[in-house]
């Protein structure tokens, strides 16, 4: 067992428990809502009943958010648990969605608005999901290094029959600087040996980039 697999097992265990905690909160809030509905305003004054209802709805919304985060963390645990060097089919659309959820807090701090573009079907690629997450984090860091304030949309897609992630800087005060930073950094660092990530401008498709991740012969070329 390597360090990544160790982290993956513990993370999966924690996510399982977190889902159980969310489940208890959800059912308890649901029960409170049920009982309030049954009471029909007889025991709770009308303004209080309304407030109770809105508070319980907020609990439900937060649980849905927590469940989505749990799903992304579970995905990361599965990715970290893969055998070293393993690159089974991974759905880049799911990687992109998971990244946007996992990095949301950092994105708010960096004033980067992250969104995951919709795809009609999974985009399968034989790359390690953790390598894709790492490349996306490097793209994120590039945008943060110029002061953030940019809206980034990440969409799994294909370019010339190659699977990858389409990176778009849609708007924001630092959009041009973010585009320039990405243009000047085609090769991303930090990939595990045997994998290479390249951020290529895709001019004929507008101000967007194509993040390509592929196996390479030399180690960390």
């Amino acid at each position, binding site marked *: 067992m390597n360090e990544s697999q160790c982290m993956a097992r513990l993370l999966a265990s924690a996510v399982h428990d977190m889902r159980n905690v969310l489940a208890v909160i959800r059912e*308890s809030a*649901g029960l409170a809502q049920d009982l309030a509905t049954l009471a029909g305003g007889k025991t709770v004054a009308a303004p209080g009943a309304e407030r109770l209802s809105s508070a319980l709805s907020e609990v439900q919304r937060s649980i849905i958010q927590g469940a989505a985060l749990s799903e992304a963390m579970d995905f990361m645990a599965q990715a970290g648990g893969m055998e070293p060097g393993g690159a089974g089919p991974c759905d880049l659309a799911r990687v992109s969605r998971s990244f946007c959820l996992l990095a949301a807090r950092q994105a708010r701090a960096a004033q980067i608005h992250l969104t995951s573009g919709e795809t009609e079907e999974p985009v399968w690629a034989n790359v390690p999901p953790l390598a894709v997450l790492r490349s996306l984090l490097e793209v994120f860091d590039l945008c943060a290094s110029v002061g953030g304030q940019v809206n980034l949309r990440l969409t799994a897609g294909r370019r010339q029959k190659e699977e990858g992630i389409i990176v778009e800087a849609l708007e924001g005060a630092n959009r041009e600087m973010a585009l320039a930073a990405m243009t000047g950094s085609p090769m991303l660092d930090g990939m595990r040996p045997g994998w290479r990530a390249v951020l290529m401008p895709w001019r004929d498709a507008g101000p967007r980039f194509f993040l390509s991740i592929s196996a390479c012969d030399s180690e960390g070329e």
Partner: protein
Amino acid sequence: MSLRILLADDEKEFVDTLAERLSLRGFAPYVVYDGISALQAATPEKPDVVVLDLFMPGLSGDEVLRRLKVLYPDLPVILLTGHEAVDDNGTNPVAQAFACLTKPLSFNVFLETLQAAVREGKECSATGGKS
């Protein structure tokens, strides 16, 4: 007569609250907190539906499912799990379940699944088929 729903989950707070909500809606839930108790509770009288947590101490939910299906092939079983990835390749006992739902549950989705499971259970019992 109220539908008898056997709920088995080692997360006591969760399953007790779920049972209370089902009671409020006219179901007759009964709760156990481990796999062996689930088998014992299902043996004297067949429930209409069984809801099993997949990961329980002692006897796991998939093993309980396997044994229940030997006893009652047409018994609809709903699995609950805190894990996203469940091997559902047709050889795993999970494939024998009516549905596999991930926690935290949407109660409405759970109710719909429960009602669909009851319908299927009744149809299977009527035709002598397998669920």
